[in-house]
């Protein structure tokens, strides 16, 4: 039996490099310009250390828990005669994964703060959750039916561009940010493993071509869904977000 702690030290090493460099980047600013008191800096550093340990445990958890299970899901349902069941499964897990992804949480809280509470964090969270669910379902449909990636990406981006003309300007930046943020490590591990697991057993699909591209499709979900939500916010114009 594979130990659930195998590979943990490797992740500790991998994640350490970006963390150290990030701290180094801050330290250059600290010594050149910021000159914050030592006590304050030590609190920040303790925070970074916590986040580092946390991320390592989270990634290890993904590797030993969610990755193999997701693969199991892909293979099991890919063997079904009615493998279209993967589509609703994609919706369900896509939504749940968006709730679980910690960086989505950070984003939603930052949006609420920056808009002085006008755009509520939970509204963003639910929008992303439903959006990613639908696009994860679409990504599964692509794997199951072997739809070429461009047939989804090109119309998807055309819709996103058209929405750029109509959506509230306050939401445009958030929408594109969310696109990259919603596809965090958990989403990638879970949804991609289901897709590649399924592609490996479904006849006529190539895991290398049909498994990849899933993230690209899911990236579209927040870009489109947040812009659509912004049309609803248009009825009630934002207040208190312009500063100074």
């Amino acid at each position: 039996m594979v130990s659930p702690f195998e590979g943990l030290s490797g992740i500790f090493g991998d994640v350490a490099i970006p963390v150290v460099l990030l701290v180094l980047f801050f330290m250059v600013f600290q010594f050149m310009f910021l000159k914050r008191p030592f006590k304050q800096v030590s609190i920040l550093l303790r925070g970074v250390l916590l986040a580092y340990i946390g991320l390592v445990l989270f990634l290890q958890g993904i590797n030993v828990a969610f990755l193999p299970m997701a693969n199991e899901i892909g293979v099991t349902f890919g063997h079904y005669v009615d493998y279209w069941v993967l589509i609703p499964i994609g919706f369900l897990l896509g939504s749940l994964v968006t709730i679980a992804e910690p960086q989505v949480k950070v984003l939603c809280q930052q949006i609420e703060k920056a808009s002085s509470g006008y755009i509520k964090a939970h509204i963003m969270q639910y929008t992303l959750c439903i959006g990613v669910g639908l696009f994860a379902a679409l990504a599964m449909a692509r794997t199951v039916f072997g739809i070429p990636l461009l047939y989804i990406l090109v119309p998807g981006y055309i819709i996103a561009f058209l929405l750029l003309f109509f959506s509230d300007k306050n939401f445009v930046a958030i929408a594109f940010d969310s696109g990259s943020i919603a596809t965090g490590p958990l989403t990638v591990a879970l949804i991609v493993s289901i897709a590649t697991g399924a592609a490996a057993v479904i006849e006529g699909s190539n895991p290398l071509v049909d498994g990849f591209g899933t993230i690209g499709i899911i990236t579209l979900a927040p870009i489109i869904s947040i812009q659509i939500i912004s049309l609803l916010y248009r009825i009630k114009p934002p207040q208190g977000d312009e500063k100074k």
Partner: protein
Amino acid sequence: MLLELKKAAIEAITSILPLVIVILILQFTVLHAPPELLWNYLIGAAMAIVGVTLFLAGVRIGILPMGRDVGAELPQHESLLLIIVSAVIFGFVVTVTEPGVMVLSELFVQLGGDGGTVMVIVVAVGMAILFMAALVRIIFGFPIRYLLMAVYGIAVILALFAPPEYVALAFDSGSAAAGSFTVPMMLALGLGFVSVLARRSSLSDGFGLVGLACAGPIIGILCWGVFF
């Protein structure tokens, strides 16, 4: 710090537990994965919950204030050069060291592309240039809509001419390049940056850095696919 941890623990449990339970239901109804897999699953899920707790608390205590401080400092020296140099260094360094990008370069080699290291550099340069462009845009007040449309427009047009496996890899790479530390740092940096500038909206100007920067790797890999 303790208060922050407690708050994060509640968030972590309520956000991850639904996923854990649904997968457990699938396990007992259809999957029937072997017991050792289930055992690992339970331990791994617990690790993820503890991990997310520490991560969320740590980000709020350490990473967000750091990003905000650096962001608020950048425009105060009236030096475009300082902003450009810092942005390029930051964008390049965080991407080159990002574990997700390493995984990407291995996939790239599997697809038959030679030169995984060169690919990492292409991705990082793309990210650095667009991150820098995103900050300079805020200074000059260039509308983000047009920049986004131009950047993603180029990506989509390139995608029409690149081999399909490169297209898949490129559009997957955008989010792989934005690591779990990069994202909160960039978010806070953008908000700090606009907080000291007059007549800037924190919503439409403070956000957008991540979205723009992530188009860098997409365009980089697609160029590779089209021209080599």
